[in-house]
């Protein structure tokens, strides 16, 4: 009668608080330069140390330039230098920019095999939900909680509620995990899963590759969820086998055997259930300024006046003004200036392969700028060994080094005011990709097809043009 959440929570509870807060042991703590400087400063001021530097790993992703491997300049350099100094002083291993193990923190965790089923993984970044794809319980935390974890290797939380999102049926050709995530958030809203951990279940989830599951879990936070997770199965074990932090020999066999118990029991009770028939889904795209403002790509910009909810209507009106869109406009007619392929949502090798498959042998539309930013140095290396970099370059796209880049616009990549971008990232908030920039969230294949035509385009729309 336990959910997967119950099982992992109970196995990590160091102290059960009477007033609703439990103390959880943290199996691994991932750090980056963006949210950690004040945490280390707090330790220093209080004369504390990092309790378990061996269970802590830092990388540089948020502010690093991706155009080349030169060091960042200005304030960004201060952030990177602070991380390097802090890691040195407190003995925390660091995967520096330019090293083989560097990359977006949520790409390298699974890649290194640090993210494992049944583990509690924390990081000072909301998209830590990504790691749940491997059956880990993984939360994003703020800087004060980062400091707490550094000092104690524990985190104090009230236990979230459990929500089952079941994806029924098989995904139609050309529909990806990103489209499913956008469709789900469109249905339940940006606060629809607030206070809950989503467990994704059902035939469509079981059929997904690990990388697709990482995309799905990544977007959970955009529905307000504490995190997302998928029970481990053969796909999980196959993904982890042989990775640097995965157990080996007898320890591996024991670990795999123990993972078979990591699923919600048949009679487990969820606080909320959502059922989605994926067989009717098609590529999705956002039209507004939060990730619930989405529509099928073959649809039109919705009319806010049709929304009976006054708050949603007013938000939609604001969004359309910001996005400079008119209700009734077919989404396919919306032109873009920039296409961004990358981020912790869609910067893994399968994403790059899918996009390259669309671009191969073609040129992107004139006037469109396309950035391809691999999620990690390892993804970059694999892509280059497969010749994907040549596909992107020949198509006219920029081939970059690993980092968060245009997803968060904290480095030198950003949109100019008024520029419109089809982006495989996770947030279409006002100004997210640069002040005044306009973001349409899409899947990697939609991004690639859009780059070819210069307008929001699904790969299936390309047939007649090619």
């Amino acid at each position: 009668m336990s959910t997967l959440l119950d099982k992992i929570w109970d196995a990590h509870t160091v102290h059960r608080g009477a007033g609703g807060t439990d103390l959880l042991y943290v199996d691994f703590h991932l750090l980056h330069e963006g949210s950690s400087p004040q945490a280390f400063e707090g330790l220093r001021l209080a004369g504390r140390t990092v309790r378990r530097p061996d269970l802590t790993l830092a990388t540089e992703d948020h502010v690093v330039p991706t155009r080349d491997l030169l060091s960042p300049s200005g304030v960004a350099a201060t952030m990177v230098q602070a991380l390097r100094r802090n890691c040195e002083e407190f003995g925390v291993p660091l995967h520096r920019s330019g090293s083989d193990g560097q990359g977006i923190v949520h790409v390298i965790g699974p890649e290194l095999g640090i993210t494992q089923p049944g583990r509690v993984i924390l990081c000072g970044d909301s998209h830590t939900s990504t790691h749940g794809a491997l059956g880990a319980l993984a939360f994003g935390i703020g800087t004060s909680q980062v400091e707490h974890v550094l000092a104690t290797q524990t985190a104090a939380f009230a236990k979230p509620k459990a929500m089952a999102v079941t994806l029924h049926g098989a995904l139609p050709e050309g529909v990806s995990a990103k489209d499913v995530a956008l469709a789900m958030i469109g249905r339940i809203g940006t606060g629809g899963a607030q206070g809950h951990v989503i467990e994704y279940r059902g035939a469509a989830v079981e059929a997904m590759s690990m990388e697709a599951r990482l995309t799905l879990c990544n977007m959970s936070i955009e529905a307000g969820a504490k995190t997302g997770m998928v029970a481990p199965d053969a796909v999980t074990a196959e993904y982890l086998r042989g990775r640097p932090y995965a157990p080996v020999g007898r320890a591996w066999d024991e670990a795999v055997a123990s993972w078979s118990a990591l699923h919600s029991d048949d009679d487990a009770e969820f606080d909320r259930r959502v059922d989605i028939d994926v067989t009717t889904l098609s590529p999705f795209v956002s039209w507004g300024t939060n990730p619930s403002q989405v529509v099928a790509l073959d649809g039109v910009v919705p009319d806010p006046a049709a929304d009976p909810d006054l708050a949603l209507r007013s938000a939609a009106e604001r969004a359309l003004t910001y996005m400079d869109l008119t209700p009734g406009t077919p989404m396919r007619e919306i032109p873009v200036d920039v296409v961004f392929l990358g981020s912790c949502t869609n910067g893994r090798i399968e994403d790059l392969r899918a996009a390259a498959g669309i671009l191969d042998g073609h040129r992107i539309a004139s006037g469109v700028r396309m950035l391809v930013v691999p999620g990690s140095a390892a993804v970059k290396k694999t892509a280059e060994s497969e010749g994907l970099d040549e596909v992107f370059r020949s198509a006219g796209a920029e081939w970059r080094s690993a980092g968060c880049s245009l997803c968060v616009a904290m480095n030198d990549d950003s949109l100019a005011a008024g520029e419109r971008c089809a982006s495989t990232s996770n947030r279409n908030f006002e100004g997210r990709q640069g002040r005044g920039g306009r973001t349409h969230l899409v899947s990697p294949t939609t991004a690639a097809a859009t780059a070819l035509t210069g307008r929001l385009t699904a790969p299936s729309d390309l047939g007649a043009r090619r």
Partner: protein
Amino acid sequence: MKPISTITGRGVAIRRTSVDTDQIIAARHCLRTTRTGFAEHLFATWRAEPGFPIGDPAHAGATILFGGADFGSGSSREHAVWALQDYGFTVVVASRFGDIFFDNAVRSGLVPAVVDDDAATAMMDVVEADPAAEVTVDLVSLTLRTARTEAPIRMSTDTRQRFLDGHDGIDVTLRHEAAIRAFELTHVPIVKAS
């Protein structure tokens, strides 16, 4: 952290839902290694819009911010909390908060007060009609009051106690040092194998 039991001040309302932390403070303004220096960038883009209440002289000195549902959604940046505090806010009232923002607020000593949607709307009406209206946030009785309205605040026992005591979260956890140590003795760690 200073103990907080009751806060009285003037309020200001942002009648927008899903106010994400990117709007509270944009990423480009988070490139700092301190917890201060963020006030001038609070809602920087929206403050340039005519009629936006933050920065409106009529609401100068307000310490209690009212927002729509899902306030603080999105990025985990604690800078959003620090920027609100840096600007002078001590309380944010909404019917629902982003989980990470809520946790960050509690840990930094900014009171996130959850009230019903209708109550939040009624309070917004009051502070918009009279920017000088006094608002009281009472964590002892868990009520939010103005001269004309009153609403219960929903807050867990632990969160309330944390404000009332003002204890440092790490100190509180370190009281369980023996339990942490015992847990570590039997728990299999993640180690690099190859």
